């Protein structure tokens, strides 16, 4: 059906000028479902007319269409090649940003894997540092914070695992990492509350007081401070934080997967 004509066009592209092939690539990108066709055309522009202005724009468009097609490795390779051959170009900022996005977008799809988050953070940082005044820097900072928060979430998850199992020392080390290296994230109030709980469980009341004071001073309005306050005073927790009968507890942990 439709694909047939596409292939016959692909063979004799030499007759067209660079601009026509480039326009055809852009047309493919907008209409056809599969961005791979567009990638093919942009690659042809670069192969047939390697010196034209179009070759440069075709390269960046290759990175973009690969990214839209969610094949992140090719997108990274094309973006990296653009940065290597045209470091001075004003599109280099966009190429670097595309490179960072290729890691960042995989974080959502791959919720739990830490490895990718590190790479995303590194490439986002290069965008922020090398092209601070480009319009991509601002959205990179935003994405950097989100990725950073994701990393802190992982540390908290592991800290709560050890806390629930009564290994207070291991939990304290993990929560201290969050408080020291991830202060700017949304996880810090909870980390301080967990530190209060862990120190109290070990019997180190003065350390618990210090953690509670820091939490109170910086996050006065946070519900975590309310919990910490009642823990320190030894009074009961607020109802929604306490948890009720045994059966509901089993339902929550086994079916809903909220294992704390």
């Amino acid at each position, binding site marked *: 059906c439709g694909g047939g004509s596409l292939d016959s066009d692909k063979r004799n592209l030499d007759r067209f000028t660079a601009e026509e092939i480039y326009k055809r690539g852009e047309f493919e990108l907008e209409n056809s479902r599969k961005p791979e066709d567009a990638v093919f055309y942009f*690659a042809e522009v*670069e*192969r047939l*007319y*390697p*010196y034209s202005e179009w*070759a*440069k724009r075709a390269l960046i468009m290759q990175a973009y269409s690969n990214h839209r097609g969610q094949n992140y490795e090719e997108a990274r390779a094309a973006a990296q090649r653009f940065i290597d*051959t*045209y*470091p*001075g*170009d004003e599109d280099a900022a966009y190429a670097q940003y595309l490179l960072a996005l290729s890691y960042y977008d995989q974080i959502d799809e*791959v*919720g*739990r*894997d*830490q*490895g990718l988050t590190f790479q995303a953070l590194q490439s986002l940082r290069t965008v922020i540092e090398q092209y601070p005044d480009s319009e991509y820097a601002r959205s990179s900072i935003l994405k950097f914070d989100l990725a950073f928060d994701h990393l802190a979430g*992982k540390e908290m*998850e*592991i800290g709560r*695992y*050890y806390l*629930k*199992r009564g*290994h207070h*020392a*291991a939990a304290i*080390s*993990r929560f201290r990492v969050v408080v020291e290296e991830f202060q700017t994230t949304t996880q810090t109030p909870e980390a301080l509350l967990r530190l209060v709980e862990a120190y109290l469980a070990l019997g180190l009341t003065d350390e618990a007081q210090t953690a509670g004071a820091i939490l109170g001073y910086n996050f006065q309005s946070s519900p975590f401070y309310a919990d910490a306050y009642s823990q320190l005073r030894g009074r009961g927790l607020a109802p929604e934080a306490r948890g009720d009968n045994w059966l509901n*507890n*089993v339902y929550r*942990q*086994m079916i809903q*997967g909220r*294992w704390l």
Partner: protein
Amino acid sequence: APAVLIPGAGAAAVFNDVRIEGAQRVEPATVLSYANIARGQDVSAGELNDALQRLQNSGLFETVEILPQGGVLVIRVSEYPTINQISFEGNRRIKDDQLAQVVQSQSRRVYQPSQALQDANNIAQAYAAQGRLAARVDPRIIRRSDNRVDLVFEVREGNVTEIERIGFTGNRAFSDRRLRNVLDTKQAGILRTFIRRDTFAPERLQLDEQLLTDFYRSRGYADFRVQAVAPELARERDAFYITFNIQEGPRYRFAQVNTVSEIPGVDAGAFAAQNRVGQGDVYNPAAIDNTIRRMETVAIQQGLNFVNIDPRVTRNPQTQTLDLTFAITRGPRVFVERIDIEGNTTTLDQVIRRQFNTVEGDPFNPREIRNAAERIRALGYFSDAQVESRPGSSQEQVIVDVNVEEQPTGSLSFGASYGVSSGVGLNASLQENNFLGRGQTVGVSLSTADGDQSSSLTFIEPYFLGRDLRFGFNTYYNVTESLNSDYNTRSVGVRPSIEFPISQNGRLELRYRLSKDTLGGVEDESSALLQAEEGQRVTSALGYSYLWDTRITGLDPLTSYKLRFSQDFAGIGGDTKSVTTSALAGVESNAWREEVTLRAEFEAGAIYSFDDYSTWILDRYRNGTRIRGFEPNGIGPRDLAADNEDGLGGNYFWVVRTEAQFPVGLPEEYGISGGLFADVGSIWGLDDTVGTGGVAVDDSMSIRASVGASVFWTTPIGPLRFNFSKAIQQEDYDEEQNFDLTISTRF
């Protein structure tokens, strides 16, 4: 091409403009950013030279010249052409796409002569690896318009250089022929065209040296050394002669073996008990490693930290004996700082972390970490799980890195069936072993087809409430219509169970079963006994199983024992009143350099009824796959007076199964291995033996036996097992089965 140095420009010069000549493809901005010479300031000769170097190293230009002309600095470059297309000519043995992977130069990239030469060399290397040392590869370029070139690699393959003869000097204990089949490299024989390992490959020689050393070391030659390996090339370059010059040294036996503890407060008794190196045995490094592994497990059981077991061997060549001392010493004080888990895209972090007995901050015990790695792989959620430890933030700390690669852990299939008599039937089955990444198992299968139906719901939570407490729940609704028999059954039931460890190697399972079974459609040609049993019964039974398995602690890597003793008490309400007891004892051992696996299992069961309850066909034991070589209902008491001669099953059974599994020489990746087995056993005993027409049914214990061969094949969808069996001792009325395809279960 070398860069042209700037002649005699001693004094600093000031430039207010830069002109770039010859840069067609590369942007002026790019050239400037590499040169980065400031405008309007004085620039010394040194800086100009650095700029020149930077431009040269950028790899974008063939030649670079910097010529100061008064106030203007001229940078004249000539770019490398870009590659239009790459092609190969004259390659028959290795295909184009394989060669393309070896080649670094890529179309649409800058052409660099040095890179092209390097690629030609890589291609020659690829041919050498296949034994074609006489291969020649030359890169050629064809100029195209727009400063582009086509890159062509011309290949002349030449023929294969095979190894004509492998010789040994200095081998007294073993013949040349015996040593030859130890090596990986083979001597060219009549099948030379097919066997690849007779072609000469230098890197295979190191492997051969290692194979020879292991061969001799494990047979007592502690001082064995390969002195030299001399490959000579025949003049016509088409044949190789290899001689291994070895020095065997004396054959050692163990004289005095003892265990001593150098840590105050730790006695060596428990460790010495694990010693598997006997006095007078021939020296064998594998026995030493095995003993060390067992002693390390004892150290874990006693909760000792930083224990290191190092074997101290003292040779006394004159008596050709070795004295071996296992010294229990204080190891370095190292702690686990962090356990970082990566690659778990769907699996929750805690599902992997809870396999570690070590908690962050605990002393670092390599044996414990290896055991945890085994447990993670045994989960079956990952195609690959690597656990490595690397230095942490301080000298005394180590970080354990876990890298896993997920694999699909579930299956989902839909199907529809249409029978003229039974009408349209739908069946759907979902099986997920790592439900939502929580490590839970969920299995739902639904079939609405008429006739044989089996729908069930299974849910297993291995760590109920976060503890090592496995909660299982299964409910089923099965209908069979004359499946291997002349009656129909319908049973629906529910089976909750919990299982938990009760000792180092033992686990206990408690379960409850509530089921309602119906036996119907018994034809009048069937046995009178069966017709009497037609009807419906409710069973409500509490049961327990005690499981004991030496692999939990993994003390002995070669041999493992397993015991399962279960009892089900039916009678808490319901019609069935019986106590079903069954036992299974098994041993599995790896022999002959861990390639052959030997298994032996004894299984027995008995049903004792009380309150004058008599068992019925659905209670009694039937063959199933217990004794291979017979139909599922093939053996056991049978009412011969009835026309259908249905198998009636029996209240008692015992069976002994022995089996050997061994490789069949096919390469590892095919995953095919062979096996031989022999089964012997019997099913007997009925409560009521008066059959059709008052003729007594023979329910005595008569021995059945069968032998057979099997083929094991691990396929992507699961480990399959093809059994070909022959009954050698059976009753004339038994029904045999010569072929069966089953899933090979792990021991």
